[in-house]
């Protein structure tokens, strides 16, 4: 189901949604005289838009970041166990 959105509201929301909060955008538009229901519909439609296109590099970096994170956690855990063992033997 699609809801028809006032193109001026849609354009305003699209232009400012990355910088301003939805609440602030809504308040500004309602203050300017737009019907609250139309503004809410536009904001809802924007939320339902598919996410921004991600490049192949983004995906590669994402996988790389996850790998590094997992390695870091693993290394910390292994290091902690080793130190505990060493301290246990020495103690």
């Amino acid at each position, binding site marked *: 189901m699609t809801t028809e959105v006032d193109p001026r509201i849609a354009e305003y929301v699209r232009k400012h949604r*990355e910088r301003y*909060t939805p*609440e602030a955008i809504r308040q500004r538009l309602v203050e300017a005289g737009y019907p609250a229901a139309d503004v809410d519909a536009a904001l809802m439609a924007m939320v339902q838009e598919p996410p921004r296109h991600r490049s192949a590099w983004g995906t590669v970096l994402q996988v790389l970041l996850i790998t590094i*994170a997992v390695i870091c956690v693993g290394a910390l855990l292994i290091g902690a166990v080793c130190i505990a063992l060493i301290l246990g033997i020495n103690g």
Partner: protein
Amino acid sequence: MLPTVELGSLQVSTHDFFTMLGLLVGVAWYYRALQRDRLLEPRIVVISVTALLGGAVGAHLLTSWEFADEVAQAGLPLTYVLTHGPKSILGGLAGGYLAIVISKRVLGYRLSTGDYYAATIPLALAIGRIGCFLAELPLGTPTGLPWGMTVSPEAAAAFPRCPGCGGPMHPSMLYEIGFHAAAFGLIWRRSPLLPIRGDTLKLYLLAYGLFRFGVEFVRGNEVQAFGLTGPQLVLIPLTALLVIHFARRLRSGAYRLPAPPAAQTARGEGT
């Protein structure tokens, strides 16, 4: 008070238990808020995991240098400081924030989600500080005020340094719990407090920075230089950056949204 918590047959340090509980509740609150606004996606999960890791590293790094010499003299590897050393909330916040900025840049995620952390962080910190309080960490400087609190001699003996342990002390952990609980309540009910995405979080961080700077005077931490404690010295540049940020925002009029096209014109064209 309560140095350990028993979970069935498992005995856990109260401090660690409440730290983990705070983290779990905070993460759950964060994801729930993102899901409500339909912003939960794989990149956000990656960013938040990176934030937790950055926070963990930052929490250990900020205080580790103070103990590096002692650890080296004891013949232990320096990694011992990272795994067993004290942790700092300020280091955790700074490390987590830095990790978010870097990971978002790397992933190309442009939408600011800082405001979703604005309620999460005080909620998690309030819970975590309950553990600090119950575990009888050194409370604060001596005080004659009616709400001054004492710790048991056993607990006092366990701390290498506790200048106020001989009598009533400022319950600085309770002050922090009060601050974070109030901040959480305000942000939860009234968020976003500012119209620009991410600035509610920055406002909370600024407020906490100023509050913590004041609390340090009754916290009993060791004075490092200029009559100030280590956290106070760290807070000066961090809060200064935030003050500059808000001063620039206010000066540029950034909190006033650009005017939308006139509603009358829009209606006229539509009919």
